[in-house]
């Protein structure tokens, strides 16, 4: 098998939890995370600004056989639908890859990590911020 390339960055153009972060700042956060975790960072792909579009994420998932994994700027960039997220976890893990979220410093590298990620997303859905 050919050598896998590294970890693809994934940034977004939509607000997250009501906040907007400039795309170049998202890249800085991912690059810094990759450096600290000793991951080989590959240039980020930016998700569409259209609500509900995950076409760019799907392209990265298609690329997984050539990657070691992906680094999301934030775990909250994952689709809101739980079933769709679980398919993403399955694809990442079955390809022998891992999934990272830079802001939250989350690594999903085995099925044991899934519930912790889902707990964060679920709490975020219901908890309010003052």
């Amino acid at each position, binding site marked *: 098998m050919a050598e896998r*390339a590294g970890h693809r960055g994934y940034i977004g*153009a939509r607000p997250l939890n009501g906040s907007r972060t*400039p*795309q170049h700042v998202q890249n800085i956060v991912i690059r810094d995370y990759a450096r600290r975790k000793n991951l080989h960072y590959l240039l980020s792909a930016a998700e*569409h*600004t259209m609500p509900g579009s995950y*076409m760019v994420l*799907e*392209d990265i998932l*298609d690329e997984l056989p050539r990657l070691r994994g992906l680094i999301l700027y934030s775990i909250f960039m994952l689709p809101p639908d739980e079933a769709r997220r679980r398919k993403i976890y399955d694809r990442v893990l079955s390809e022998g890859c891992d999934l990272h979220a830079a802001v939250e410093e989350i690594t999903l590298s085995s099925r044991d990590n899934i519930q912790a990620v889902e707990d964060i997303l679920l709490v975020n859905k219901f908890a309010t911020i003052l």
Partner: protein
Amino acid sequence: MTDTAFLEADEQALAQRFIDDGFVTTPADDRAGLDRIQRRAAELAADFLKLPHGNDPYAMLDTIHTRVSVDDLNGLRLHVFNGLNAEPWFRPTYFRLARSTIETIVGNELCMQRRVNLSIQLPGDDSSLLATHSDVWSGDSPFEVVVWVPLVDVHRTKSMYLLPPSLNGDMQDRMASLRSAEELYQTIKPHATFIEIPYGHVMLFNQTLMHGNRVNEEAGSRWSMNCRFKSIMSPYADKRFGEFFEPILLRPATRVGMQYKLPGGFHG
């Protein structure tokens, strides 16, 4: 009907080409400036590769695939990108390459992307592809245009492709039923046009149209730069004023207008 138009005939023709085709290509307004950029890019590439500066920058760039591996390509690209953008003359020169076209298509009070991007595509390399996209989908304003400048001759897969304006709307309407950008490319593929641009020319294109690149299947390496321009007072999207764009041409009347305050202190 009046016998005197607001626009000159050549401006009208250029504007119509842009509307109809989604792009215009023209000889660089400042050919010496383009040659200076090309020469500096070749010098920076030579520095990265620890080679002496040569006297044929075109050949150095076009055959870079004989000197650099895919693994080292992004390091080379970043070195040249940072080196060019660090030159104080670089962005003004880049603007001057296409100034007359930008002013006809966009206007004469302008802001410019803060960093000019650089792409290098080695023959056969699939590591630095841009999937089918419109810049607007990732946070650019539909009021922006892209000035795209090759540092070598580009044609077929050594260039970029663009979907014509007449088809873009229909294809956008079908997007939500597609899963990935690759599926989108397969849908638009029969209609996408690879744009041939000889070195010495520049292209200005409508970045709301779908575009991208594929694996370079030609003999030489592609080197191209791209940079966004927009009318300074037109609406911004996620690529904001200050953090992504900065003003380059602001006219005195606008400065006066922005500073003007009506007389105050009335109590009647």
